[in-house]
């Protein structure tokens, strides 16, 4: 099949939104399909949002292709007779996060009107698709609530998860993801002030927010946690990641209301490591079951600290939860074979 994969991107910003495209491209090719990938720039500022949407509508990607798979919004705006959408998130600043610190929409009639225009646009464009899939039940529920669109959950797998394996069990709880305010690495650092065991925390990742990284460094310094909190700042290689996760005690991923379970959760599971998350972390709760394949705590420093201590104090239990996490991947059918079957159906 000749497949066009289209997604939006922000130049020089890498993350899960790109991985899913690159890994899908590679897997489609592995299964013998011909693939063209289109990354289209997109700015979501209210002043130019609708211009950007119109520019997507004017592109014709239907030439010579049997199927369009649209991923990051507003790629679903593209027109194609065989459009399938793998919807990974809304432009949340215009939806559930409107008029919060995460939104740039003016709190005015005009600002809210742009949000209404986007919602109408999204609903119409998603309605054109032959199928709509989401990366989590959380996102699917938002589609139902905001757009009246029914969808099917299609969990994004890791690319070649066999790269990950459990090598050892050291004293570190690792966090491998971009360092951003909503990923709440600051909460993890604050938790380390309250731990009672010799457990350590390693934060790995790049950031587009220098002030947030600065605040994390300052926090470590102020709390005198330099010997127990390790900051691996910057983008780490895949090899390093495999190494860090494979040797750790457990993974921690406790963002605020995330759209999906997040690749960190899946990478940990691939290496037979459990994940600690918080009850308000959103999509992680579709994967993590408290006490079975990870821990779910209150989103507070003290509660997370208690979770860290539990993971350290009972390493046998922690290892067992890691093996259960590995099994959860299969139980949820998080495989590329399943993904391709559904996207190309």
């Amino acid at each position, binding site marked *: 099949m000749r497949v066009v994969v289209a997604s939006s991107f922000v130049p020089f910003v890498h993350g899960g939104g790109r991985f899913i495209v690159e890994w899908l491209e590679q897997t489609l090719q592995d299964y013998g399909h011909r693939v063209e990938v289109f990354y289209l720039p997109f700015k979501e500022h209210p002043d130019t949002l609708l211009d950007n949407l119109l520019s997507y509508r004017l592109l014709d990607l239907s030439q010579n292709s049997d199927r369009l798979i649209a991923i990051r919004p507003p790629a679903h705006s593209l027109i194609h007779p065989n459009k399938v959408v793998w919807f990974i998130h809304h432009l949340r600043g215009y939806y559930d996060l409107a008029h919060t610190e995460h939104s740039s929409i003016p709190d005015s009639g*005009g600002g809210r009107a742009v949000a209404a225009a986007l919602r109408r646009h999204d609903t119409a464009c998603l309605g054109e698709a032959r199928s709509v899939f989401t990366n989590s039940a959380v996102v699917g529920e938002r589609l139902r609530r905001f757009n009246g669109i029914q969808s099917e959950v299609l969990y994004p797998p890791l690319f070649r998860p066999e790269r990950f394996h459990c090598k050892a069990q050291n004293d570190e709880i690792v966090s491998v993801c971009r360092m951003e305010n909503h990923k709440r690495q600051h909460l993890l650092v604050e938790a380390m002030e309250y731990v009672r065991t010799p457990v350590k925390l390693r934060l790995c990742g790049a950031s587009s927010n220098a002030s947030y990284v600065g605040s994390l460094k300052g926090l470590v310094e102020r709390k005198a946690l330099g010997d127990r909190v390790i900051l691996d700042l910057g983008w780490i290689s895949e090899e390093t990641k495999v190494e860090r996760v494979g040797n750790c005690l457990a993974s921690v991923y406790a963002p605020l209301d995330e759209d999906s379970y997040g690749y960190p959760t899946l990478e940990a599971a691939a290496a037979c490591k459990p994940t600690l998350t918080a009850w308000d972390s959103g999509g992680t709760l579709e994967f993590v079951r408290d006490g079975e394949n990870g821990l779910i705590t209150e989103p507070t420093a003290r509660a997370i600290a208690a979770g860290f201590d539990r993971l350290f104090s009972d390493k046998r239990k922690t290892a067992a939860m890691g093996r259960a996490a590995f099994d959860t991947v299969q139980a949820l059918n998080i495989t590329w074979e399943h993904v391709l079957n559904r996207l190309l159906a």
Partner: protein
Amino acid sequence: MRVLWLTPVHRRSAIARFSELVVAELIAAGCDVTIGATETSFDSADRHSFSELPIAGASNHLANGAAFDIIVANFGDHYPNHAMALGALAFPLMIGIFHDADMSNFANGMRAAQHDPIGENGDWPVGRNVVAAIARRCGGAVVHSRFYLSAAESCDGPIAAIPLAWSPPRPNRERSASGPLVAPFRLVTFGNINPNKCPDRVIEAIGASAVLKEAVEYRLVGAVEPGVESSLRDLAGRLGVRLVVVGRVDDPELLDELAQAAAVSCLREPVLEGASASAIEAMMQGCVVMVSDAGFYADLPDDCVVKVPAETDSSSIRIALEKIYASPEACAALRGRARDYSLATFSPAKYADALLRLAHDVRVASSYAPLIDRLAVDLAGLGISPDSGTADLVLGSLEAMAPVRRRGEMSTADPGKPAHASHPLAGNAV
């Protein structure tokens, strides 16, 4: 949704009563409604209740107009009642509700006040052109009957014809199913009694028929100018018609009059109003309503009212009245249909629902206005003609995204309108 509702609020205003009904439904639908009074002199002691909402002058709220999701401004043909609504025209997220098809009196009031927010190069609009002149500055427009929809089409935004919302107070006494409660045969004209309501022609019609002259008592219920009253009394006296000038009454008294009426005359010549609260109220009360077959009244179903040809001459009125008098059983059936139709059609809940849908369209369309402005300039700058395939692709894509429609020519620039208004895209269909 945050709604700023601009309306006259005083007790005698029918538009205030309409507003009160719709606002209650908007609140029930979850809207956060603020009321702004549009009278030139607003008396807070003489107001409709509006669910006990606080009421301030319209200009107080318009100072913060951009904070609202939609501003709804009511326009009727009486400048002192609606003057302050004109301030809403400065805001894009705004819907004008036009209660009258002809707003000449409003324009006269503006002229007298030397207030000209809608004049075109010093030319004062008249008649339906007043509606058009105001509508072209609205983000969306509502009319209450399709007969003057064309006047609202100057609006670039979404427009809609929504039947007026009305709900009568509960009558003091129930009408009997078969006819009037008391003899003689009472015919009522109510409201502000003026020549437009054709009372002279009704008297001539009764006077020209021996049967009607014998049976009918013609009652004028409402304020009437002394000169008009005098000439009507003279005419009735000459023709031997029993005329009772009841004068101004309060609501319970009016309901009593309607309950005892054999028929109600809602004749108009010419038809100026967008919808007639009088006719609707009479229908809701289960009256036999006689109307001129024109404007709003022409849209009423033929089997719910008695229609007189649009010219509304006295011989046609006589024929209609004789038919009503001679057919009590048919009239009883008509009353039932009129009541059912009016209650279902002129429902405040339906009105609010339609208005909210329109408001959503206005909000979306207004968001696209800056984009359309830029496109109009860009396409013209590239030398792309409106009928080219490229323009069609761009405009077709926009039409699929927003409630906009093509109109006119890109080259027909209008200095009084924003750039997008002279573009082939503007507004949307009803």
